[in-house]
């Protein structure tokens, strides 16, 4: 069974180092993500979307409240796709993926399989600097999916790419996501991306941030980017954001 994510009464305040100014990002946030569910988090800049992912990933600690990643006997494995691919420039593509599989205790063939799954098998020995932006992000996707994560976090994964490349990678991410049920959280500025990929969209707003709207997307998968229903829903969300 895959992990489920449950956040209860989570609060987080940052204190600005120089000015000492306190900024409360969350005050008693509740959020549950079911098994096999991909939840998109949208909202204006500064509403704590990335902080939410950092808290789940353990990069930050909440001041109060709990974050529970329940599920299988072992500690849930966490995969994350960042806005920038965050690759080691001094390692070839395959070794970048193997870092994650080695750390997760998964055999190295998984790294090669993942690279093959994202269409970069023949670039395994290429260094990131000779790959295009889209290819580098594919390596980032391969690294995240290679460890067969129970929880997958996407932090604006395609926002640094041109729209055509981003569209291809969204389709690829959808394919990889459909391989098996996981818990997923997608932070994005792009409501269309959220409607295309997610099962549910939550809209964060205010300071401290709270969930001001929620939309369930029941469209069957695989979805198509040109789907009229998805586009209509995207317009509704945009209306709530502006």
């Amino acid at each position: 069974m895959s992990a489920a994510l449950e956040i209860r009464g989570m609060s987080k305040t940052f204190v600005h180092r120089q000015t000492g100014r306190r900024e409360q990002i969350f005050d008693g946030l509740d959020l549950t993500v079911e098994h096999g569910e991909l939840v998109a988090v949208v909202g204006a800049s500064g509403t704590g979307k990335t902080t939410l992912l950092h808290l789940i990933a353990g990069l930050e600690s909440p001041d109060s409240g709990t974050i529970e990643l329940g599920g299988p006997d072992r500690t849930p494995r966490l995969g994350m796709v960042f806005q920038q691919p965050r690759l080691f420039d001094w390692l070839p593509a395959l070794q970048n993926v193997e870092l994650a599989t080695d750390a997760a205790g998964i055999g190295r063939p998984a790294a090669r399989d993942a690279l093959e799954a994202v269409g970069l098998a023949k670039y395994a020995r290429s260094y990131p600097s000779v790959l295009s932006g889209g290819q580098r992000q594919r390596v980032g996707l391969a690294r995240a999916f290679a460890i067969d994560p129970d929880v997958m976090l996407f932090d604006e994964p395609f926002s640094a790419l041109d729209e055509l490349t981003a569209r291809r990678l969204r389709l690829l991410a959808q394919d990889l996501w459909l391989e098996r049920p996981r818990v997923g959280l997608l932070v994005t500025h792009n409501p269309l991306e959220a409607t295309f990929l997610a099962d549910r969209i939550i809209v964060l707003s205010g300071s401290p941030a709270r969930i001001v709207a929620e939309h369930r997307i029941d469209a069957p998968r695989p979805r198509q980017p040109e789907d009229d229903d998805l586009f209509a829903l995207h317009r509704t969300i945009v209306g709530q954001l502006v």
Partner: protein
Amino acid sequence: MTISQSDVRQDAGRPRLPGVAAGPDGAGPSAGPGSGPFDRDRRLRWVLGAIVPPVLLVVIMLLAWQLMAARMATPLVPRLGEIAGQFGGLLHTSGLWTQVGLTLERVGIGFVIGFLISVVVGIAMGRSTLLRRFLEPLMLLLLVIPGLVKALLCVIWFGVSLINPVLCVVLAVAPVLIMNIVQGVRSVDDQLVEMADVYRLPGRVRLFKLWLPVLAPYLFAAARLGISRAWQVIVLVEIFGLASGIGYQLNLDFSNNNVAGVLAWTITFALIMTIVEYGVFQTLERLSGRWRKEAGA
């Protein structure tokens, strides 16, 4: 699974420079066989540009020395022949290698210990503001204390034991290395460290796959400075407190007014430094930076 590959870079038809062949996957350039006349010319130009200037400098310096020695005609400025004779004499005795071996052993042990301590402390200081603030005054103090004082204190405290020269070398190289590593760590992209945290990369992997590659340029710069400081203090320690090593031999020839001997030992010292620079540092630097060449970075 549907896979779209159309954003894969297509560079098969890209024009290439002569002598540069496609990489194994066509993803980037790699060095070609280099057998054409173009490559021979280029290699010759490289050899002329890389070898001739330093050799020319040495020749000019030798000629100037010989001219000065001939004009001054004093035992304080011996001619090249005398120095060469002394150096040749040293080469034909086992003493040279014994003394060089002893000094190298002292510098080597001290440098390796200092290097290992510096990598750990430097990374820790770079990552922790509190630790940096705590240890920085000590590092600055160690940096400004002259090598002579360090050597004297080590001789006073540890006498003729191996601890004396080794500790002195550690004290000479560690502050230089640590301060450089701290600067290097602060230049590391925090996003990469975050990625390492998310994927729970173990400490050993972080050290060898993240920190050392990022810190390599800082480490080489610091190691060069550190090794020169190590040589300065080891000579002093051997002069003041030991009865062996290059420093002791230098002092012995100085006491006997044997300037040619002093210069012969100095040449030995310079040759060792050349071997360390070209044989060790530049080789390691080339190996650590090999990915740049392969990546075309």
